[in-house]
């Protein structure tokens, strides 16, 4: 179907791959965006609690009798309890001096009364998130900046993030799978009209060069438009070439016929033996030319038709019978009997005009080379393949040239004196090949040539 067409990639694959690739990129993008967003939200949640804890401690601070007292509530720390038992660290600073809590906990000193500041650090070997806030305390003879920092490990946060990450990954994978299925579906839907067009063009008969009528998607319109234009041009050129063949046949045959009739008339009027001889040679040459012209036109016609077989169901027996009837006058002239051997109808699919032409050439040959008062047998067989054999009782093919005879303009060495163009077997062979069969030449053991035209 597609021999000789250069293939470069596949639209279907290209479409599928780009859809799936796009989906993969989108799924990955979604994963990272959702994860980043979840991280932000989870971090926000932890920050809020840390900030609340810091503020509850800071709020409990007061100055009494020159001492800083920070009587923070039980809830300051209990609010920091998590499922994964995150560790908690804190520090209370009076100006730059540690008042209580863990020494060495990294300090952020946010601006006084400007809310909490947040950061990440490592404390006691664990990565922690910390919140800090500051407050100015003013007593009778005291003015200090109190800074509170609360830090917490991030096991719970990471646990939550991993859970979210896992869920998002599952969703992403599911989404991706769905898109893969959709991609295959979308691709075959998109490719569908192309396949339909291919089928409709491939199914056309050889004579059908009408434009594609069924509607096609917009993207395919230029292609179908070009195809229709090409077919229109082809049809035009074909009809011209058919016209040309008909014209040529007419133009060559008619003058030749005129010349022949003149030559024959002249022959009757000429008395001198040498002139009569010359006239006979002339008539022979005209016959040969006429026949060659006919054969050439036949051959041209066959070359054209072989590319566009007009395939129909044909009964070979009927075809041969018809042919034999038409050729019987010529046969009778030469006292040759045309004998048809067939058991019943043999049905084949083929181009009737071409087959007729081919078989007629074979029978013509047989009639030319067969001796008078002999029989030319036309055998129609069904096994192993449908075939027609033309068997005569003549001299047979010259043994050394048997394979060369079907070549164009090749004539056997024993053909001397017999009119012929050298195209008869060529035509028969080309028709046979156009029908997927072949032409076999051989000599009968009892003498005589046998040509088998098989499908």
């Amino acid at each position: 179907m597609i021999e000789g067409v250069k293939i470069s990639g596949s639209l279907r694959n290209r479409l599928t791959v780009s859809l799936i690739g796009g989906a993969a990129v989108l799924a990955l993008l979604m994963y990272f965006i959702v994860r980043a967003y979840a991280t932000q939200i989870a971090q926000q949640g932890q920050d809020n609690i840390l900030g609340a804890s810091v503020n509850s401690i800071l709020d409990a601070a007061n100055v009494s009798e020159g001492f800083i007292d920070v009587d923070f509530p039980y809830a300051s720390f209990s609010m920091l309890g998590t499922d994964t038992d995150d560790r908690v660290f804190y520090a209370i600073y009076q100006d730059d001096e540690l008042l209580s809590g863990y020494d060495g906990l990294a300090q952020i000193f946010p601006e006084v009364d400007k809310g909490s500041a947040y950061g990440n650090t490592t404390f006691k070997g664990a990565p922690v998130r910390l919140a800090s806030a500051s407050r100015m305390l003013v007593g009778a003879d005291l003015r200090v900046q109190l800074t509170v920092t609360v830090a917490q490990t991030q096991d719970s946060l990471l646990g939550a993030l991993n859970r979210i990450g896992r869920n998002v990954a599952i969703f992403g994978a599911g989404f991706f799978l769905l898109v893969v299925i959709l991609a295959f579906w979308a691709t075959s839907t998109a490719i569908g009209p192309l396949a339909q067009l291919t089928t409709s063009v491939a199914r056309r008969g050889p004579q059908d060069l009408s434009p594609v009528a069924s509607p096609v998607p917009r993207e395919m319109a230029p292609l179908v438009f070009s195809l229709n234009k090409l077919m229109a041009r082809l049809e035009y050129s074909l009809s011209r070439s058919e016209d040309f063949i008909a014209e040529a046949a007419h133009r060559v045959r008619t003058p030749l016929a005129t010349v022949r009739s003149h030559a024959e008339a002249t022959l009757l009027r000429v008395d001198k033996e040498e002139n009569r001889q010359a006239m006979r040679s002339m008539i022979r040459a005209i016959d040969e030319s006429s026949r060659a012209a006919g054969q050439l036109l036949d051959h041209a016609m066959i070359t054209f038709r072989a590319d566009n077989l007009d395939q129909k169901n044909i009964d070979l027996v009927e075809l041969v019978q018809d042919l034999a009837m038409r050729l019987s006058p010529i046969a009778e002239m030469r006292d040759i009997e045309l004998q048809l051997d067939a058991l019943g109808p043999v049905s084949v699919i083929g181009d009737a005009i071409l087959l007729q032409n081919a078989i007629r050439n074979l029978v013509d040959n047989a009639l030319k080379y067969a001796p008078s008062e002999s029989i030319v047998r036309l055998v129609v067989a069904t096994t192993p393949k449908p075939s027609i054999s033309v068997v005569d009782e003549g001299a047979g093919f010259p043994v050394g040239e048997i394979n060369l005879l079907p070549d164009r303009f090749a004539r056997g060495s024993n053909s001397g004196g017999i009119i012929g163009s050298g195209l008869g077997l060529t035509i028969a062979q080309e028709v046979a090949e156009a029908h997927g069969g072949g032409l076999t030449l051989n000599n009968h053991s009892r003498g005589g040539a046998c040509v088998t035209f098989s499908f």
Partner: protein
Amino acid sequence: MRYIFFLILTFLVQPVLAEEWEDQQFFGSATSQKTLRILSNTDTRFFAPIIESFLKSQPSVSVKYLVTGSAELYDIFRTSPEDFDVVISSAMDLQFKLVNDGYALALGDLEHPDWAQWRESLFAFSTEPATIVINREAFEGVPTPSSRQDLIKALRQRPETFQGRVGTYDVRHSGLGYFFATQDARASETYWRLTEVFGSLGVRLYCCSGDMIDDLVSGKIAVAYNVLGSYALGREDAQSQIKVILPSNFPTKMMRSAFVSTNTRLPDVAGTFIKHLTGIQADISKAATFPLPPLDRTVEPAISLDPALMTYLDRLKRRTFIQEWESAIIQ
């Protein structure tokens, strides 16, 4: 004045006695290769059966059981964490802080209720209430108090009987005492009223439950407050002299807890010991064989293992609390 002298004496004696153990026992064969060093504030008699049953399954192991007070335990362990494999204490807050500060090894493969463990490192294995223990003789003919309010009433009605005969923990030196006191104070204002009454009666201050019970049995004191019920009930010989009362309103319950030191040389043996310990304590049917009260799995405790336990360990909070406590109790 008497008490100030007592306090000064205690302060002076403290550092000298730091490495003097209240008790020190060796279990198993002296020639064994592996010696598990357990630092504990729990009387040896409560732990001996547990250790002995553990050694039955671990014949190649011996156990050195070192007992000290809960506050000293905390200091000793922080100073030299590499000297001990397992730490057991009734002071939940101090235990919690040690784990929070990274001194405990996580044991991943131990099945334990979530509320009774922290970071798979600290494992609570008993539920023990703080109780009021009275000398029966002192309450003859009068109804025994069933709550803190009852106790306040009883003490106020007969101050002459109770003058100098009331005992409780010295919260400045007992980790468990401080823990009970802070949790009491957190739960109700009654604690402060009670403390003031104690102060007015010239309260005797103790380091440990054991000493208080001794004095109750001998009749030296008539009432002891916040004594570990398990210790009092453990004195089977003395039940005719003393009576253990579980305060009906807001009972303060402590969970004894254990962890494996990160610096342990025997992480496997220590882990197995914790598993053995929590296994025994989870099994109610073994309560008769092992004197330590089991872990009460029926209710989640009011005092849970969470970061809030560190609240009263804060230097400022502690200073404020001690100041208040001193001003109430020392008059």
